[in-house]
């Protein structure tokens, strides 16, 4: 426990030597996974409470959906997409939002209150899986690229070091603060990303350019795939 707390403190100070000593321990990955679970539950419980609250007090479909469609139209107006494609995207998004609202307002077998409470509970339980689905595939891809570029770090060691990115996310419940949610979300995500990049670069033992390639290539590949899919949607429209 003392070693884990020391590792957490070294991550917050970006102390590479301490990180390497800690991640080589057999218990490091178990501790790191516990950290991921704790961070997920901290954020998940807050978002579950907010979700259940929103479900209980959901206004009838209409004004909120129109507001989102107007925001999307403003945003698309600044994009290079042709006006007819913009119009089609907004029309489809508005119809999809309307459908989402209609489905959410259907009656539930256990009644609205129990249904919303159960929905909130399910949201909290699924939170660690959502974090895992982002962290593990990305880290495995970065690890494979780093190894191809000459890193000698082991799998368990790399995974343990990368879990430290979850440290700032222990404060994710702050995102429930009214009016400050978006600011806390940006600050905590940027802080977590900085720790992740530093931990992965330190543990891989690669120079800065190669570490940067290993870290960014999975993101670039994902962005390219998303762009291809978006282009496909635009062509269909």
């Amino acid at each position, binding site marked *: 426990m003392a070693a884990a707390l020391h590792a957490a403190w070294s991550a917050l100070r970006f102390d590479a030597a301490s990180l390497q000593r800690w991640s080589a321990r057999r218990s490091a990955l178990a501790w790191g996974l516990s950290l991921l679970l704790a961070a997920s539950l901290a954020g998940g419980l807050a978002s579950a409470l907010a979700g259940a609250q929103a479900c209980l007090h959901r206004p009838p479909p209409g004004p909120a959906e129109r507001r989102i469609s107007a925001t999307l139209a403003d945003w698309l107006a600044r994009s290079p997409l042709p006006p007819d494609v913009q119009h*089609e995207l907004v029309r489809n998004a508005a119809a999809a939002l309307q*459908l989402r609202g209609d*489905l959410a307002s259907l009656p539930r077998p256990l009644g609205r209150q129990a249904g919303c409470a159960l*929905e909130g509970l*399910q949201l909290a*339980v699924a939170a660690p899986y959502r974090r*895992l*689905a982002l962290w593990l595939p990305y880290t495995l891809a970065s690890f494979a690229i780093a190894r191809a570029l000459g890193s000698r770090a082991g*799998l368990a060691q790399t995974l343990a070091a990368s879990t430290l990115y979850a440290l700032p996310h222990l404060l994710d419940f702050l995102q429930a603060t009214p009016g400050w949610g978006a600011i806390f979300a940006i600050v905590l995500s940027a802080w977590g990303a900085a720790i992740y990049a530093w931990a992965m670069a330190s543990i891989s033992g690669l120079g800065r350019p190669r570490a940067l390639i290993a870290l960014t290539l999975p993101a670039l590949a994902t962005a390219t795939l998303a762009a291809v899919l978006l282009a496909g949607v635009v062509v269909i429209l």
Partner: protein
Amino acid sequence: MSMRGLLRLLPQVLLFDGDIYWQVKARPRALYHGVLLLLLLGVALGLAGAAGTIVAHGASPDPGEWARAAERGVLSLPIVQRLSAAERERLLPLLRGFLRRPQPGLHLLFTTPLGLLAGWSIYGLLAQAAARLLGGRGRLSDTLACTALAEGPRALLLLPFLPPLGPAALGVEAWVLAARFQALRAAQGLDGWRAFWAALTAALILAALGLAWALLWLWAGGRA
């Protein structure tokens, strides 16, 4: 190695300890115990899945009513309206299959272990073929025994209130894939990169087969 001994190795599978697969490979009746482990895991996952669908049934609107409302809504989307009547007709079975929500029931107790066994055995055969092409020297029974243990991370899904995860299940799949890589490395005596390509190739082929099967199932389900 007894069944209890195999269960004791599960935490090490979760912590990516690649040495345990060498222990599995060296033990007699490893494949038999691996199959038993998979059956146990499958039944437990089936129970958790059945409990999950009961909870989801209580939390969500009536599945039939939800599917009808969703179908009406999807068909009225402008992008779907632009399709010709014949194209919409072709889309309908797939859409109905996709919108069908799981009904609470004990059928998961049977379908989950069978699905797990089918996925494991097909993956094992594909991985054995890929590993052999890449210079592997292990027997099929070694591959199957080691990859049976590599299914261990699916135990993370043993939560009764867990809703259908959708894309969030990707993390557990990635965990299983990384464990399969370590399993193949030990079972076939391959170096890291060859084991990586063997594990990835088999997983990609299995994913393509799974996607084709899911589309067929959705299409058939929508027509029923």
